[in-house]
């Protein structure tokens, strides 16, 4: 297994195999993800969930690969569906979040005395 990983790594260009770079990126991104959410007021739980859901639509970047050459017909059909679904996720997600946040006036959620 390790030998295979080494061969796979050797076929990458550059100094570091993508897997190693990717794992570094993963490590730091996870840390950022943990730290970036500190105190969230309960009124923001759902909008934050909705906003990060929209960001998870980043999978559209992966879906776009399916429309490139080299992908056979079946793969392209799956890719079309993936692009459509991911776009729904993205557009719907950001619009829904925006709608939720419109209920918040400058001074905080409407209907409450203070923000």
């Amino acid at each position: 297994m390790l030998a295979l990983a080494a061969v796979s790594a050797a076929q990458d260009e550059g100094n570091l195999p993508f897997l190693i770079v990717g794992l570094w990126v993963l490590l730091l991104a996870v840390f950022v993800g943990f730290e970036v959410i500190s105190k969230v007021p309960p009124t923001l739980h759902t909008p934050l969930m909705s906003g990060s859901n929209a960001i998870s639509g980043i999978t559209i970047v992966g879906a776009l690969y399916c429309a490139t050459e080299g992908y056979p017909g079946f793969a392209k059909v799956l890719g079309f569906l993936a692009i459509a679904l991911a776009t729904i996720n993205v557009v719907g997600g950001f619009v829904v979040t925006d709608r939720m946040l419109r209920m918040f006036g400058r001074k905080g959620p409407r209907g409450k005395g203070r923000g």
Partner: protein
Amino acid sequence: MAEAVPHLALAGDTSVELAYMAAALAFIVGIRRLSGVRTAAAGNRVAALGMLVAIGATLALLWRFDALWIVAGGMGAGALVGWLLATRVPMTAMPEMVALLNGFGGAASLLVALSEVDHFRAHPATDTETLVFRFSAAHSVVGGPDYATAVVLSILIGAVTFSGSLVAWSKLAGKVKGNRLWGLGQKPVNALLALVAIGLAVWAGYFAGADGAMLWASLALALIALVLGIGLVVPIGGADMPVVISLLNSYSGIAAMTTGFVLRNNLLIVAGSLVGASGIILTRIMCRAMNRSL
């Protein structure tokens, strides 16, 4: 040859990578600002801008599209449906809408992984090569244990996220009641499904040959994972559903992250991990607010 897809960027890969970094920064700033009442609306806009940059950069990266209609049609249809869903839905239906949208994202990750299996199979080589053992300097597809693991994980997590989110949506929308669906939902059944899924994952990734078994193994894995997703979410009551949706939200981020390892795309790894990690924290926060444990 490190990339799975031949591509040609407009101004070289560097500008695409820099754009990706800007997008990642926008996502981080956006999520941060979404945690504060005054900054939340701006945070959403920043994140949306980041997504725009990410999509634009990817289009530039992959600009030699084989079938442009797939891109245009898919994005056009998706944007329209997404817009309609988001604007037509009443405010009270918001949480279930988040679940539904999240499910679509998970489905997309699943489909991309399956598409990648088919892509892998399509390149000429001997019939017995598996996702792990295919090394092909002559062709543009490179396998490897990391590739194989990432592909089967994407299938597994994407499928569970998709079906689980659909169950969450239908429960909140009042379409499904109760703790069981066709006998699913009980812990031993779930455990069995999970074991079968893991077995299929190992088979699909490491042993199934490209001649045909690989695709069927992957599809079988997807199917079992879909059933597992139903079984995991069905027993949960409506009051706990928002917490579950937050957890599923995190899973869809993890699915995007594993897709990043498949396609060797750093932005997928970053954004996916961001959503995955922040989703777990948010789930914990929501649990504590409800005084419940996970």
